[in-house]
């Protein structure tokens, strides 16, 4: 009897050591991955895309026009695959633009909405999503399955890429952080979920093919502009302005690094 009790105790101890108390990093990672797979079955980002489509086609603003004739780089009215090639250089504005800044350009030019009004509320909350987020969800969903293809075929694009790269590794702020602090080391982690190494093609692809995404923990769809803005907040930097050149430059660096990755967004995140 005594012997069998001891055996049981040893068995229990062994069981506890491998499961409840000491999950190995692989087990933790597997659990997180399983959770992510389950989430993908019902991605509420699709609901945002449905609302965004209605908004995109609705006549609004002083000019009472829809956004349907907006040129995202492949000609007015073309949406298929445009997000996979953004940020890109636009000759009419003479600037490198990401999707969100291009949307503002179109609201100003086509609908006659002032830039101030068009950029008033770029990020929403769980109870009241922003129109920007809904439009973004719709437009990016039209690039599902298209490979990311950023071309540095213009001096402005090259410049944006170089600035973005410098920003990625630029350490500053009260914590002396840079993007690279959390996003440039393989097989290490700074929180439960591992973060992608964004300076490598594999990591950049993983991120850039799944953002923008519905964030379960916030019950909201989050855009790339928000993602970068919030990273800066988490690093305790002053937060960059919406559609500022610096955010677009950083996005250009990340998107170029992710070239060839097949876009699968809008995604879903924990």
């Amino acid at each position, binding site marked *: 009897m005594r012997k069998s009790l001891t055996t049981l105790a040893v068995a229990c101890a062994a069981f506890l050591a491998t499961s409840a108390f000491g999950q190995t990093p692989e087990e933790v990672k597997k659990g997180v991955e399983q959770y992510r797979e389950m989430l993908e079955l019902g*991605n509420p980002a699709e609901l945002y895309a449905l609302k965004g489509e209605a908004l995109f086609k609705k006549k609004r603003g002083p000019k009472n026009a829809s956004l349907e004739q907006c040129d995202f780089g492949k000609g007015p009215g073309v949406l298929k695959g445009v997000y996979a090639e953004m940020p890109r250089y636009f000759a009419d504005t003479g600037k490198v633009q990401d999707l969100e800044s291009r949307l503002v350009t179109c609201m100003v030019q086509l609908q006659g909405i002032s830039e101030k009004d068009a950029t008033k509320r770029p990020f929403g909350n769980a109870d009241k999503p922003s129109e920007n987020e809904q439009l973004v969800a719709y437009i990016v969903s039209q690039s599902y399955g298209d490979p990311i293809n950023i071309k540095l075929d213009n001096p402005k694009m090259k410049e944006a890429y170089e600035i973005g790269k410098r920003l990625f590794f630029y350490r500053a702020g009260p914590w002396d952080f840079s993007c690279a602090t959390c996003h440039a080391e393989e097989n290490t982690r700074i929180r439960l979920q591992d973060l992608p190494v964004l300076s490598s093609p594999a990591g950049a692809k993983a991120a850039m093919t799944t953002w923008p995404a519905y964030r379960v923990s916030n019950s909201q769809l989050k855009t790339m502009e928000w993602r970068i803005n919030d990273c800066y907040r988490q690093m305790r930097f002053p937060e960059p302005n919406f559609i500022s050149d610096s955010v677009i430059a950083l996005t250009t660096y990340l998107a170029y690094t992710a070239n060839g990755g097949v876009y699968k967004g809008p995604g879903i995140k924990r």
Partner: protein
Amino acid sequence: MGDPMKIRARMQGDVAEVRVLMGHPMETGQRKGSDGKIIPAHFIKQIRAELNGKVVFEAAISQAISRNPLFAFKVKGAKAGDKLSITWEDNKGDKRTDTVTISG
């Protein structure tokens, strides 16, 4: 009127696999807003699926279901080309119906 639903219905062998994503706040009535006041309960209480007008699935649900609920179920006896419509009704009397054609 409610927000549009995203419905997927596809034949897998001789059963139709259906997945419905509904956009709804599903407020429990126990949460407080930023003004400190209770947000009134607002949730779907009844869902119904009809195949060519015949009810094949019905459920009474409550505020225990999450925001933007997802329902997945299988329908026997369906064929590609059949019309499947989903209806929900919430506690405020709001209703929404969306219809799709089952794909092969």
